[in-house]
């Protein structure tokens, strides 16, 4: 069992690293370069395609790997139902960019573990896109990111004995993820705008990685900060409000039905 957990985490970690590399690929390509060769220009133009391909691949690996542990009917049904609830929560309106889609992945990831958290996050975006007819090139990024939200929540240590601290930490992660999510969503958008000849917008000959990122930071501030503040603060507040009763509920059902782990494989 420990080995299973270890493999699970390794896969997730590597997939995450690849995802991060995919996002940073354009920056990396240009940092330190002196001029844009035609081949590099074409590579830059294809950066978004490559990124999507890589992210989809990572998603496939993680989903296959997590699902490959025996999933019995209880876990599938509970995961499915909570995914449905999360998709509904996502559709509820809120001010500027706020969507309550982080609350359940964070709390469930914390209470039930990384597998549950990742699957809940990623699949609720998928379900919400499928039912709303909103499948688009942004979907793999959203799935990966909200999956990470659920996954990282499982790394928060057990704080049951200090309820106030627990709620504060969970709320803080909601806040942080609100901003990170926005930053990542911008990254997918940004390479599409990226024209090979226009590297000047983000890059001058000889610019190092740090400066490239700095320029990107400016772009981010100008375009989506307002939206992300709404999302970050909204999620943090909502978690602050709901964490305790929801955690009680989640733990109660886990005790009753014991579905969060690996039933023995069929003999």
């Amino acid at each position: 069992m420990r080995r299973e957990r270890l493999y699970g985490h390794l896969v997730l970690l590597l997939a995450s690293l690849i995802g991060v590399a995919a996002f940073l690929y354009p920056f990396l390509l240009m940092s330190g370069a002196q001029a844009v060769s035609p081949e590099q220009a074409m590579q830059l133009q294809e950066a978004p395609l490559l990124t999507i391909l890589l992210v989809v691949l990572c998603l496939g690996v993680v989903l296959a790997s997590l699902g490959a542990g025996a999933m019995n009917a209880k876990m599938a049904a509970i995961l499915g139902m909570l995914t449905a609830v999360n998709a509904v929560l996502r559709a509820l309106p809120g001010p500027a960019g706020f969507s309550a889609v982080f609350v359940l992945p964070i709390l469930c990831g914390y209470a039930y573990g990384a597998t549950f958290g990742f699957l809940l996050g990623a699949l609720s975006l998928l379900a919400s896109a499928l039912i709303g007819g909103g499948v688009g090139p942004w979907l793999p990024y959203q799935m990966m990111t909200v999956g990470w939200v659920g996954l990282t929540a499982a790394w928060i240590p057990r704080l049951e004995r200090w309820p106030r601290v627990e709620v504060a930490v969970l709320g803080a992660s909601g806040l942080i993820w609100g901003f990170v999510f926005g930053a990542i969503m911008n990254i997918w958008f940004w390479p599409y705008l990226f024209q090979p000849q226009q590297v000047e917008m983000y890059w001058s000959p000889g610019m190092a990685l740090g400066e490239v990122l700095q320029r990107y930071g400016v772009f981010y501030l100008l375009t989506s900060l307002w939206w992300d503040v709404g999302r970050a603060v909204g999620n943090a507040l909502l978690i602050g409000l709901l964490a305790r009763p929801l955690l009680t509920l989640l733990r109660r059902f886990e005790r009753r039905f014991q579905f969060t782990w690996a039933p023995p494989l069929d003999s």
Partner: protein
Amino acid sequence: MRHPLSWLIWAGCAAVLALMARHPLYLTLVVLATWLVYLGVARSSLMVASWRALLKLGLFIWLITIPFNALMIHQGRVVLFRLPAHWPLIGGPITLEAVLAGATAGYALWALLFIFAAFNLGVDAAQLLRLAPPFLYQAGVVTSIALTFIPQMLASAREIREAQRIRGHRFRGWRDSLPLVIPLLTTAFERAVQLAESMDARGFGGALTGMTPRYLARLRGMMVLSLLLFLIGMVAQIFWPHLAALAYLLIALAAAMLLYAFHRLGRSVRRSRYRRERWGAGDSAIALCSLAALAGALWLRYSNPAHMTYAPYTGGLLPAFHAPLGLLLTLLAVPGLIALAEPTPEGDALQDVAP
């Protein structure tokens, strides 16, 4: 409706082409082809209104991108006007080339949006899910359950809201959402348990039968290793371009391992699949045409990339046009022509009878 796989092939090829051929004339061809397809599907879909709104939003964003681009880039010969050079980022000459380049970039994005609009309107969510490969079976089941129960959860949410209101609870905002969220989640759990019983009672195994834990661990190890190789290959390719051949080899090896692992995982899910959708001649036509267009474009990209890009800064203000590529792009219109030639789909489509 058409088989969802042919839709996926069409959308994929069209999207890749829109991004590769970033050139106003080619893009226009792609958009026209997509428009034909869109006409074909918009007749019979219920979500046209929301997509139309999104497309309008896309136009709006495009219009914003143009001045944004123009203000940031200061290259080019035809100067429209000048801003004081000491202003940060936006100071300097504002050129026509920058405007044109920005317009093209936004155009490409909007074309992408349009392609996905047509895709979403033409394909059915449930059918799309059934395309999921066997190694993703568990994730597919979970998503299927979620799709089935989203309407019920919405109905429950409404029911709960009513019930709490008649107890005197006022919903003034998210602060008062606790009496809504708690019963909603509890109902979700209770329903889930009932569903799980029904699934178990019908033989839902879920488990990967016939696979020993050791073998599973080995497959996982293989996937981990292949991801590692991918990472190394990618990084090597960037920082040590002279090792490019080795990097590509690593990547190819990683891909092969991954595919093998996926294949074995899929084989171990002991389940059959009931195929309801039929792959028809129309589907073959769509798939072949889309793939042909993509193949042609790829060949062109590797043989003569200059034809495919539009470079107002260096290559002149007017875009060049390579006729064979243009012809290939028109192949993307095939689904639209097929859809328009058919009578409004009846029979095979899922009937929604009002409850």
